[in-house]
Every structure is written in C-alpha cells, then in structure tokens.
C-alpha cells in the first residue's frame, strides 16, 4: 500500500506537470507550423537542447522525493517530522519506503517525458515528417535514462533537506551539471547535458548508449547514497 501513499502524495503534481506540457506544446507547434524545411531541424534542435532539458529538470525537482524526509520548512524548523513518524511506525524497512516512493516519482517523471515526446511527434508536422515513431520512442528512452541522474539527485537531497529547499537544491545542482558539461571537456559518456540535447536520437539520429549507461549507473549510486542517509537518519 505504500504505492497508494506515494500516488496520493504526488498525483496533483503529476497532473500539474502534464498540464504544463500544453504551453510547451504550443511553442513547439508554433515552431513547427511556421518553419520551413531548411530551418526546422535547427529549431527542433534548439527546442530539444534548451526547452526540454529545462522542463525535465523542473519535472524531476517537482516529482522526486516529496515527503521522504520532512514535510514543510515550517515543521522542519521546529524539529517536527509531520506524518513521517506515522510512516516510520510501520513494519517496513527504510529501503522499501525509499524505493517505493522514489520508484513512483520516477515512473511519473517517465510518464511526463513519454507524454511530452508523443505530443512533440503529434504536434510538430515538420518533425513528424523527419522522425519515425521508433526514433521518438528512442528519444523518450534516452531522456528518461539521462534525466534519472537529476531525479535521483533530487531524491538524495530529499533525505537531507525539506521539500522547498530540495526543489531549489535540485535546480541549482542541475545548473551546476549543465555548466560542467558545457564548460569543461568531459568524456563523451559523462556528457549528460548533450545526451539530453544535441546528442539525443531525434537530433543526432543515434542512441547515446554510453551516456545512458553512465546516467543509470550514476543514478544507482545516488539512490544508494540516499538509502544510506535514510537508514541512518534519526527522527
């Protein structure tokens, strides 16, 4: 039943993010409708490189980890833990608590990314002409795998910070990752920013397997670190 708790905690956030895809789509649609064949690939590349990563960071920060640590800044500042004490009175190991909560948020994040990719393909005629459904599926898989780092970074922050600081921390850390990827000459497999953007399947027409594998590996490490903190955390 932990899934029910996770779902009830995040359902409105998920709905908000799904609704938020609509204005994003409008921008995409405008880009597609007025583009000429020669300019469309540049516009789509710009969209994929800049708008979508921003949206994904926001989705990860919004859907990850709410309620893992404390409830609100107000309660945290008073040393209160809200309903966390009730959750922790359940006969459940912290691994399961964290895994279910993080798993639900990750599935929801994946769903938002999936919906976004479907909408991109359906709403941008010029892109539909140049990208196959399989490539769009590959794009979604790449975005999900690469964004996992941001998501699990947010989960890690959730074991240390309250919900509001976690969101701010995730956005700041994501900016840091972006700066690292763009300013330093990182090895190709570690360049997550370009894996989501310019090296993603609908722009580069290849799957960045090495970046995906690196991202998933790093995500596992972040989850493990989050688990260790959650297991040691006192309430």
């Amino acid at each position, binding site marked *: 039943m932990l899934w029910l708790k996770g779902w*009830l905690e995040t359902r409105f956030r998920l709905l908000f993010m799904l609704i938020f895809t609509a204005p994003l789509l409008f921008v995409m649609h405008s880009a597609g409708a007025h583009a000429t064949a020669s300019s469309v690939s540049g516009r789509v590349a710009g969209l994929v490189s800049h708008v979508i990563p921003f949206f994904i960071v926001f989705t990860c920060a919004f859907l990850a980890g709410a309620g893992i640590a404390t409830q609100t800044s107000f309660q945290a500042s008073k040393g209160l833990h809200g309903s966390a004490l*009730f959750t922790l009175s359940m006969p459940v190991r912290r691994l399961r608590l964290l895994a279910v909560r993080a798993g639900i948020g990750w599935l929801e994040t994946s769903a938002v990314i999936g919906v976004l990719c479907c909408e991109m393909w359906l709403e941008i005629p010029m892109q539909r002409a140049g990208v196959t459904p399989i490539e769009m599926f590959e794009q979604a898989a790449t975005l999900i795998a690469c964004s996992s780092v941001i998501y699990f970074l947010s989960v890690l922050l959730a074991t240390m910070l309250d919900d509001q600081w976690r969101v701010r921390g995730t956005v700041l850390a994501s900016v840091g990752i972006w700066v690292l990827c763009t300013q330093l000459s990182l090895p190709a497999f570690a360049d997550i920013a370009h894996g989501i953007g310019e090296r993603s399947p609908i722009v580069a027409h290849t799957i960045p397997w090495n970046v995906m594998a690196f991202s998933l590996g790093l995500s596992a490490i972040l989850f493990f670190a989050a688990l260790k903190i959650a297991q040691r955390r006192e*309430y």
Partner: protein
Amino acid sequence: MTDFVIETHQLCKSFKDQPALRGLDLHVQAGSIFGFLGRNGAGKTTTIKTLMGLLRADTGSAHVFGVPVTDADSAAGVRRRIGFVTEDKELYPYMTVEQIIRFTRPFFPSWRRDLEQRYLEMFELPKARRIPDLSKGMRSKLMLLLAIARGAELLILDEPTDGLDPAATEDVLRELVSITGSSGITIFFSSHQLSEVELIADHVGIVDQGRMVVSGCLDDLKARHQRVHVVLESGEGPPVRWPEGAESIRQEGRVVSILCSHNADAIVEQAQSIPGATVERFPVTLKEIFLEHARSN
C-alpha cells in the same frame, strides 16, 4: 525467556552533546499497563522513539520482545507487533479516514476488523472526512484506532489522550483497560495527566533528567510511600536524624512533613520519640510521589 516486553539497560542518548537519556533502566512486564511519567524534557519521547527505532542509542541496550532495537531496520520486524501513537498526532493530510485505515491495514496481518468497526462507531469518526478537517481530538481518536486495530501485542502511546475532552478521555481509558483485560496486551504510555495514570496504570516509572528515578508496581509504590506529619510541641524540635527512607522533610511552623519512600514504621517510631510530638501518617497520591521525585532531582 524474559517476562519483560520492554527492557533497556543503561540507555544513553545525547543530542549535540546535550544528554537526553543518561543510563535509563526500564523494565515493562508483559500484560501490564505501564505509565511513563516525567517532566517536559525528562526523556520520555526520546525513550519511546528509541524503542521504535526512530533514534539510535549512543550506548546501552534496548530490547523489545527480546529483540535488540539498535536501528530502524532491526526494529522493523518488532514494529509489526506494536501499535504506536505519536506525540504530535500527525497523519497524512491528503488522505481521508477511510483511506488511512485502508492504507494501514495490509501492513498488519493480525489487523482486527472488529475493533476497527467498533472504534469507528464509538469515536464517531466520519470515514469520508479528510484528515485536515478533523479536530485534534478526532485525530487522537483516529490514531488510537489505527494503533489498537493493528492487533498489536504492545501499545506504545505517547500522550494518547492529548486533545481529548474529559468524556472522550474517559472512554479511551476505559477501552485501554478493557483491551488489556480481554486480550492481554501490554500498554506503555506516557502522560502528563497523573490522574489518568493513577486510574489505569498498574506499573509506573518516573523518569527525570534521563534517568529512571522510581519504577515499580503502583500499589507497591503507594503502599511504600507515606507522608508522616509530626506536630511539635514548640516551633523548634530537637535535631532528629531520620532513618533511611525519609525522602523529603519540610517544616512549616510546628509541623514537620516527611515523605517516606520506604521504612515508614521506623520513621514514625523515631518521630514518636520526640517529646510532646504528635505523629500522623497519610497515604500519598501518585502526584505527590511524582512531584517529590521530580523536585529532589
């Protein structure tokens, strides 16, 4: 096999070098109703959280059902046998009464649907109401339902009647006594309401500054503790060396008031040896025992 459901030995816990528990020894017998008393900051909630695996002890040991509770995961199996009411009575604000019952039920194989129904009706809890819309008293009742219906062998209740009106408090206390009698579960509860503790507890422990200062069967404690009033003939009596057990000696005018923790007969005998003194002995309430121990520490 030990008869103690809860057993701690020299339990110590500090927060940023501020000691909360300083070698707490606690023994709670199976089937008892144990009232855990102490002033604010005495270490009650820290003890309860340590027993639930929410805090890790710095040194010493804590066993629940004979299982060492060293961290959150080691306590996970034990928590299946425990019903818990938290001090702040916080539940999920996004659930209704029915949803939180449905959420809690599957974690406990011995869940008692009969008790669930009984308390839903008795506490008049509206199933469809959202938790933020419940009053503090209603939330306390809901937490009690969620704790008791687990079919637990041990109830750990941190201020269980906090927020309840006198009638509801009475109902809850009666139910606690009733379920202990009918199903033999052990109840370990903290409270500031000494009258409540006196009403239902058969064992009490008084904790002060992280140490257990008094612990035992309530009847024995009350039988052992007595107040002796010595009315002197003149304002100043002869200096008296009171026997062991004279815990607190106060003089107001001609009256010397002595709280005896034990050895009352010897103390009375000593008082009677004072020329012209009149000696009376009175039973004491739990409140008097508590206040004397809290003050003396």
